């Protein structure tokens, strides 16, 4: 990816992500989340991962956040008033962020900073990704699907109990 494009996108992504956390209106926060996810999918395209980018938009931007918005509207959440962001929350958040930053820096220091080697032909395309997913990573893939199934059954069970 062109460094200039990268920097512009990165700044926009961070701004959108900050809006998610800092905005007082839940609907605006959710929309900022959509923008963040959409911008991330552009990064995936830049990394030759077209399939991941498409799935990111379909699953997260197109479905998950829509459900967030749906719930916000059904519960009629209002703009939060007063000082809800109590000190313990800020303290934990800050500590978590610092820990994450330290980890990232440590990880990136070990990364080799050479010229990026070219990716093999077809990298990130559907066929190549499916090949890995259904051979080398078959067991984790299927286990994930079982996890999701359990979650669905659990959600239905909870909904039935309430009704």
């Amino acid at each position, binding site marked *: 990816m062109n460094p200039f494009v990268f920097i512009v996108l990165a700044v926009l992504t961070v701004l959108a992500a900050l809006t998610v956390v800092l905005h007082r209106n839940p*609907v605006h926060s959710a*929309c900022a989340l*959509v923008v963040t996810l*959409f911008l991330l999918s552009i990064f995936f395209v830049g990394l030759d991962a*077209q*399939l991941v*980018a*498409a*799935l990111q*938009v*379909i699953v997260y*931007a*197109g*479905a998950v956040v*829509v*459900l967030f*918005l*749906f719930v916000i*509207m*059904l519960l009629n959440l209002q703009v939060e008033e007063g000082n809800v962001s109590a000190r313990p929350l800020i303290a934990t958040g800050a500590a978590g962020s610092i820990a994450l930053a330290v980890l990232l820096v440590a990880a990136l220091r070990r990364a080799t900073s050479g010229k990026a080697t070219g990716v093999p032909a077809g990298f990130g*395309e*559907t066929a190549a990704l499916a090949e890995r997913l259904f051979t080398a990573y078959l067991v984790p893939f299927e286990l994930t699907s079982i996890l999701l199934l359990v979650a669905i059954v659990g959600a239905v069970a909870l909904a039935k109990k309430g009704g």
Partner: protein
Amino acid sequence: VAVEVGIVAAKALFIVLLVVQVMGLGVFFERKVSALIQNRIGANRASILGFAGLGLVNTLVADPIKFLLKEDVVPAGTDRLFHFLAPLLSLIPVLVTFAVVPFGDVLEIGGRVINLQAAELNVGLLYILAMASLGVYGVVLAGWASNNRWSLLGGIRGTAQMISYEIALGLGLIGTIIVYNSLDLQDMARAQGQLLWGWLPAWGILYQPLGFLIFLVAGVAESKRIPFDLPESESELVAGYFTEYSGSKHLMFMMSDFVEVVLIAVLVTTLFFGAWQVPYLARDGFHFPWGSGLALPSLVVALLQVTAFAVKLVFFTWLQIVVRWTLPRFRYDQLMRLGWQGLLPLALVNVVVTAFVVLVLERA
């Protein structure tokens, strides 16, 4: 490089213009076919500067002018930003999907072989689904930002409906993906140029009749039109999520409705009815099954293909509008039951059966 960019821009412009033209025809059908079905004459009285001689054509010219000149009313208490953004978020995602739609095979001109598709994407079909799934934000935000109970109800109904039917829509397409073994629409279109038993064009409908039905029903539901128009049902919610929109913003919502209809027609044509294929027409001309043939230059072949694509497109647009004026509106529980208990299990069965048959045929 400049030539390459120019070619891509020309292709993109062409497909957008094609879509807009078919959309205009859709409005024409909406006026006249509905009149025919309801045994009345239909719009024919618009007068432009005192001239009303062209009947419906006048109306088609006058309508957009009227929309653009009307006052843009923004009610008090709205969320200004999202009230402004919602129509754009409704229209733009649907319009950009057409970038990956092929409208012909190849055009050989001055030693260049031009693939008649604006953007060649390895994940073309998923790209369309991804962009189309973003259209829901226009509906949900219009409903929320308008500060109106009817709008909010319409927005919530629209969201639930679009999410529910998106699942059936996507699953209905998996059978086709298995059959063609590709996500690129141009690959799918070319695969449909083969002949079964030497004479029958191998169009997708022959392999995926059930997939076609599921996709068509779920597609009409996605475009929020009768019999699935509960988000805007005018007898209950005034106009649903776009109650509080006027002038050109209202026009954008109506446009995005029609563009969605054209998108469904494009996908049905491309996946199930041979895309731009004309039966027995190959790159170098006709090859009839009874042995004779007719050699044609590349330009003529491309023109025939583009025409075939446009004609099929217009037909499926017309079909959806006839459906709209024929069926009554569902109740909301019926709508949800059809989506989750009808289309979804059928689509799953379709996926499993298709996968099994393809596997058996490959082994044999």
